[in-house]
């Protein structure tokens, strides 16, 4: 595990806490925005009917969307904080691969998505792959 020596070196637990904050906030944000977009319906069809303005309005009048964006913004600032203290080669693979698995779980529980064996296998393969790629 390598750290970026821009200041005081963070300990193991603060590194874990920073990455966990990114993972939890982005999972909450992604599940909420996905739920919002599912409730809105196909944006391409909305745009075909009522133009780009209609599609933008459909998104911006959905309260779930803003709740999702709030958590995604939290995840963004948690990521900036983590990148300021830890190496990208640690933060990116750790948060990306963990988020894939937490999202598969959250997608099954909260969005009732059909996470079949094929999708589980994909989540695990991509998770290990991202780790190897960015490690």
């Amino acid at each position, binding site marked *: 595990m390598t750290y970026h020596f821009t200041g005081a070196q963070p300990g193991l637990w603060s590194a874990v806490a920073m990455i966990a904050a990114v993972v939890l906030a982005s999972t909450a944000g992604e599940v909420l925005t996905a739920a919002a977009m599912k409730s809105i319906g196909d*944006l391409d069809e909305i745009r075909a009917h009522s133009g780009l303005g209609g599609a933008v309005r459909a998104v911006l009048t959905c309260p779930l969307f803003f709740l999702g964006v709030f958590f995604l913004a939290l995840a963004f600032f948690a990521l900036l904080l983590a990148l300021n203290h830890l190496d990208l080669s640690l933060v990116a693979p750790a948060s990306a691969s963990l988020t894939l698995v937490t999202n598969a779980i959250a997608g099954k529980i909260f969005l009732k*998505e059909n996470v079949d064996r094929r999708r589980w296998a994909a989540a695990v393969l991509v998770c290990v*792959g*991202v780790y*190897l790629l960015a490690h």
Partner: protein
Amino acid sequence: MPHPTLSPRQYLILALVALCAPLGDTCLSRGMTAMPSIGLAHPLALVAAVFTPWIGAGIALLIGFFSSYLTALSWADLTFVLPATAFGNVIVALLARFWLKEPISLERWAGIVLITLGVSFVAQGPSRTEQPVPATEPAPSQESAKVRAR
């Protein structure tokens, strides 16, 4: 298992999702590692970071990512769209290898193979779970998950 029929336009949107996210993250990383250490005591310094060039470029790319990501989520499952984002890492690694001539270790090639396998798994399946309309119905079985053909 029937095949999902995504239109070329929908593939283009998935490609934008895949490309903009890793490129944006790379810009953010360049910008943030160049900055002095920021502690929790000075959260406003994080806001000031938004106005530096690399972070600004990263945010512009991430806005492109977000709008195409939202569009993709409006016609596909979250657990279908997310592996597409991860596929972007493969594209960036291949760009680094063949365009920037960076060496790729054996581990990275293994990572590329695993991600590609995972994405091809998902791409063969249906892109969207059909939900039963009344909330009181039991969860859909695998057989009831139908392809949303377009």
